[in-house]
């Protein structure tokens, strides 16, 4: 269908939010565009405004300020039922008294679709979701993942749906089924080709599902990009330590006019401007003959690699060392991969492009 664009979107749950108080706002001045047929993840800690943003797109909430557009159409004031949007919630919602078939048919019947078409669509979607043989069963009798499939099916069944929004849909699903349902989603996205926006606070879910990940913090977008971009060039220190396991190392630094950043006298990075922190992922730090002198504090084995915690003065630096690679004894030197070592000012990346 169309591009979904959010323009200067702000939302507050207070009756009279103060413009100057960031704490009054769940979302602040958000500008975002979601391309048609994209697979997006909205990632952020609890309370960052993810669900609010989702509800604004689906129309369950009306924004305090700003506009929501689907293509050219301004849908800001439209009711959820009038938008071409489906939403799957954290807890599976099924209509208990209805059969699986009637559950899937419900959104179509509400919109006055003819019974023949309802039947065809429901069977088509049931086949996609592997629910064909349960169609006559009562929805209330299904397991949590089956119910969640029905919730999803009620979205897919409408031929006019432009986007499906997922609000942490795997929360109540058993761990061994999570993976299956997630790959099912990915497969559906490829086959059906609707925009999917997936809210989660789990980086694995976000990174495996989405082509584009939007990281939210305190009601603002801190970075939107591909998983690789988020990993290699976090635009904000929050993205650096929220994504990645373990997160990014952050060290205080001093920069000179040439943009060289020094930590404890060692030049570790070069940027385009001044900053106060050096950020480098544990993946891009290695032990070398020369460099920052450190003392090894702790080594924990994570299977294919080891996480080494090395100390320089009061600063701990995490280093990933591949399985089988030799480690220095107690004392060693660290070398930083220049291309992947970034300088941050007030938490934001100082562009060294």
């Amino acid at each position, binding site marked *: 269908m169309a591009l979904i664009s959010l323009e200067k979107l702000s939302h507050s749950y207070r009756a009279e939010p103060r413009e100057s108080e960031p704490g009054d706002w769940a979302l602040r001045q958000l500008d975002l565009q979601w391309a048609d047929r994209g697979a997006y993840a909205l990632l952020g800690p609890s309370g960052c405004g993810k669900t609010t943003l989702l509800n604004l797109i689906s129309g369950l909430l009306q924004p305090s300020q700003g506009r929501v557009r689907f293509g050219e159409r301004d849908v800001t004031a439209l009711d959820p039922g009038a938008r071409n949007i489906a939403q799957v919630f954290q807890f599976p919602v099924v209509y208990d008294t209805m059969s699986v078939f009637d559950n899937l048919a*419900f959104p179509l019947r509400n919109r006055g679709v003819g019974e023949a078409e309802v039947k065809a669509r429901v069977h088509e979607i049931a086949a996609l979701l592997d629910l064909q043989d349960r169609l006559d069963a009562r929805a209330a009798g299904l397991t949590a993942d089956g119910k969640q499939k029905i919730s999803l099916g009620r979205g897919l069944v409408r031929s006019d749906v432009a986007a499906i929004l997922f609000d942490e849909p795997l929360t109540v699903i058993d761990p061994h089924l999570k993976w299956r349902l997630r790959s099912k989603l990915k497969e559906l996205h490829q086959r059906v080709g609707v925009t999917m926006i997936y809210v989660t606070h789990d980086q694995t879910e976000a990174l495996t599902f989405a082509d584009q990940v939007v990281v939210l913090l305190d009601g603002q977008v801190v970075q939107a990009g591909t998983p690789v971009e988020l990993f290699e060039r976090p635009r904000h220190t929050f993205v650096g330590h929220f994504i990645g396991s373990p997160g990014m190392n952050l060290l205080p630094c001093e920069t000179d006019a040439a943009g060289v950043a020094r930590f404890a006298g060692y030049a570790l990075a070069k940027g385009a401007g001044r900053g106060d922190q050096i950020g480098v992922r544990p993946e891009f730090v290695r032990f070398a003959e020369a460099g920052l002198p450190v003392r090894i504090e702790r080594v924990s084995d994570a299977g294919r690699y080891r996480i080494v915690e090395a100390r320089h003065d009061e600063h701990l630096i995490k280093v990933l060392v591949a399985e089988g690679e030799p480690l220095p004894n107690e004392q060693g030197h660290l070398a930083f991969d220049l291309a992947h070592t970034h300088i941050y000012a007030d938490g934001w990346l100082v562009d060294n492009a």
Partner: protein
Amino acid sequence: MTTRTTNQKAWWLVLPVVLLVAFNAVIPLMAVVNYSVQETFGNNQFFFEGVRWFEEVMKSPRFREALQRQLLFTATILAIQIPLGVAIALAMPRKGIGVSICLVLMAMPLLIPYNVVGAMWNIFALPDIGLMGRGLNALGWDFNYTRQPIAAWVTLVAMDVWHWTSLVVLLTYAGLSAIPDAYYQAARIDGASRWAIFRHIQLPKLKHVLLIAVLLRFMDSFMIYTEAVVLTGGGPGNATTLLSIDLVKIALGQFDLGPAAAMSLIYFLIILLLSWLFYTVMTRDEEK
């Protein structure tokens, strides 16, 4: 092999309850059973009569009429109170100061003693000085509940609706509050109408509280005595003589202890049977 020793001492823990139930239910009931099969002329002389009183009660038109009035009364108030209670609960505010105000207003009738309710409505409906009675007469309805059976019934039903609809409202309101928001949100996205939301979300989720409400209202209304006696005393004539009123007339008015005891047992069995019927019908789906 180990032999399992059963700790018989546990029986002592059950004893207080057994005694309590024995004294407040089993023994009085047995006394009634005792009366129901005997004839007495005082002086503590009893003559065994077998099932004669039961036959007499079952054959008597008086009992049948009282039972019919009782069934009509209960059916009427259930048909009014359950839908009305649900409707009021749906219309009540879900948050804000209005919630407490509504809840207090709703709880009020439930806190008033039964005989006071009867007395209130007795005066309220009087055609000469009562607000309702005078009002209806002023509107052109020749309304006098002490003389007209219809007017007596209208007053009786109105009183019970006023007194007890709140119970249905409170139960339903509690049931509605327990429905998670996600259901309403999903329904909005699915384009469900207000009616569809009620039919497919609210009503199914209210099933259990409504079952309780129907059972409580059925049992209470089937046993109604105090308010009705204070309001109409069973009149005019026998127009509002419900089962319990008739029972008291037989037992304490005429001192026909045998027939009264037999009637009590039949009365009790009818309530038991109908309660079981309601319960079975309303929970039938869940077996599947």
